[in-house]
């Protein structure tokens, strides 16, 4: 069991190394956010993952699957040992998460731009049912290139989904292709409530993600570092989709913050 974020990063590195596969840097980018979300913010029930009273979380940037697997394991949805089966033909933890296989995974994601509209649909359904549950999703900044993200933003505001929060993991990995400019202003222009935070500062994350009243959806623009916690990976595009080889692993573990 990983009792600290450093331990969790180690488990993720080991899992990716064993598989020869994984988007580790993307997982490390959101690990602080996930940690705070699943330690006091989101209502979840590992004994009954489908508990109707749970809050919903959608990892729209599904390639960061190692992050959500690690967090779900720390919360007891499945044993941490299972990370060792990551991406194997006999395992259920794939390079992108499968909601029909993995307890605690709400949506099968991997194709960018699908998770946020699905999350908005969940929020709409919960509103129709007058549920008190809320929905949180995480999108990447590169993912914000996709038109479907902005279509979802438009309809979430129109349908007054105040119990819907979209966190943008803004690690600037998409800058090499398309600059997003003032993302906060863009969400505000879509009539969203916007909070800008340091995505690795737990107090700021907690303040931004705790439930709020009203019928305006919230965007949390989280400034993050891709590969956070492992020096060699931090903001290094070479590590976007790469796993350490066995002889590289110890050196990378030694770098973990």
């Amino acid at each position: 069991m990983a009792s600290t974020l450093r331990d969790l990063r180690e488990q993720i590195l080991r899992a990716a190394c064993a598989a020869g596969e994984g988007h580790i840097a993307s997982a490390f980018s959101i690990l602080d956010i996930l940690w705070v979300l699943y330690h006091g913010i989101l209502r979840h029930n590992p004994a009954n993952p489908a508990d109707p009273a749970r809050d919903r979380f959608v990892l729209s940037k599904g390639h960061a699957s190692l992050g959500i697997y690690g967090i779900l394991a720390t919360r007891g949805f499945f044993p941490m040992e299972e990370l060792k089966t990551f991406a194997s033909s006999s395992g259920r933890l794939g390079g992108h998460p499968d909601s029909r296989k993995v307890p605690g995974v709400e949506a099968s994601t991997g194709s960018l731009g699908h998770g946020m509209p699905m999350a908005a649909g969940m929020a709409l359904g919960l509103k129709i049912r007058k549920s008190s549950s809320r929905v949180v999703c995480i999108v990447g900044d590169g993912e914000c290139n996709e038109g479907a993200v902005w279509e979802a933003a438009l309809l979430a505001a129109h349908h007054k989904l105040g119990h819907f929060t979209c966190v943008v993991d803004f690690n600037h990995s998409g800058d090499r292709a398309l600059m997003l400019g003032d993302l906060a202003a863009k969400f505000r222009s879509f009539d969203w409530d916007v909070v800008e935070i340091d995505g690795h500062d737990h107090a700021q994350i907690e303040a931004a993600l705790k439930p709020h009243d009203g019928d305006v959806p919230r965007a949390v623009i989280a400034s993050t570092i891709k590969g956070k916690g492992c020096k060699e990976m931090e903001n290094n595009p070479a590590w976007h989709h790469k796993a350490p080889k066995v002889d590289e692993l110890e050196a990378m573990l030694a770098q973990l913050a």
Partner: protein
Amino acid sequence: MRKQFVTTMERLLDEDPRLVVLLGDIGVFAFRHAFQKHPKRVINIGILEQATVSVAAGLAKEGFIPLFHSIAPFVVERAFEQIKVDFGYQALGGHFVSVGGSYDYAALGCSHHCPGDVELMQAVPGMQILAPGHPAEFDSLMSQTFASGKPTYHRLSERSNSEARPVTFGKAEIEQLGSGPVIVTVGPFLDRVIEASSGSDATILYYTTLAPFDDETLREHAGDGRILCVEPFYEGTLAASITNALRGKRIALSSMGVPRRFLTDYGHASYHDAACGLLAADIRARLDELRHV
């Protein structure tokens, strides 16, 4: 094959000022020299496939030859309507180059699988569809179709045959002539078909152009009409092309390809080859089955 793709595009960028390469935020490092040399015509366009295909159509209308490159589901499935209407309906020329067809990216799961790409592209009238089986074949087919003025889909594979064939756009290659059943196979599956038919009297026809389909070669060599199609995408994808080519002739067609279900296991592509029954031994068994028809 991906390395050859970059080399070929570097050459064509030098040769033809009409070429504009649009990368869907993949292959950026591999194209680093091309970015430096042709900064206005090699663009990392971002992760916005629908708009990219329409932008490419706009470039084509202005006289350019656009090329869009991304992973197969994002090129074909995500932006399919744009391909159909903007390129197909308007009869514009351009190139779509995918990687990760079928289950090349097995560990990434079903969102990154794409065994339905060729079948979808077949639904766009006028679309030229190519599935090279070797890097040199990609170079040849791209060169032959580059300035054709038609929409053209190039399906790159992570796996290649050991040797290139002298491929001609629109023509099937006769790999082996025999008196037994005819095996129609495609791109990277040729080597395993040769292994499977070793010592047999089968005829092997090797297709790298899937549309327009070479009816003539199949008609000439269809023998007694027993056809085994071994295809690296959804099984049955080429069935309509084959039956159309042999219309009026009594045939027994057996198709082998990726089964029509979600492949929810992970692991490596070789694992799925075995799980899908697409190894040489499986092909041999199906060939022997056809022998008794």
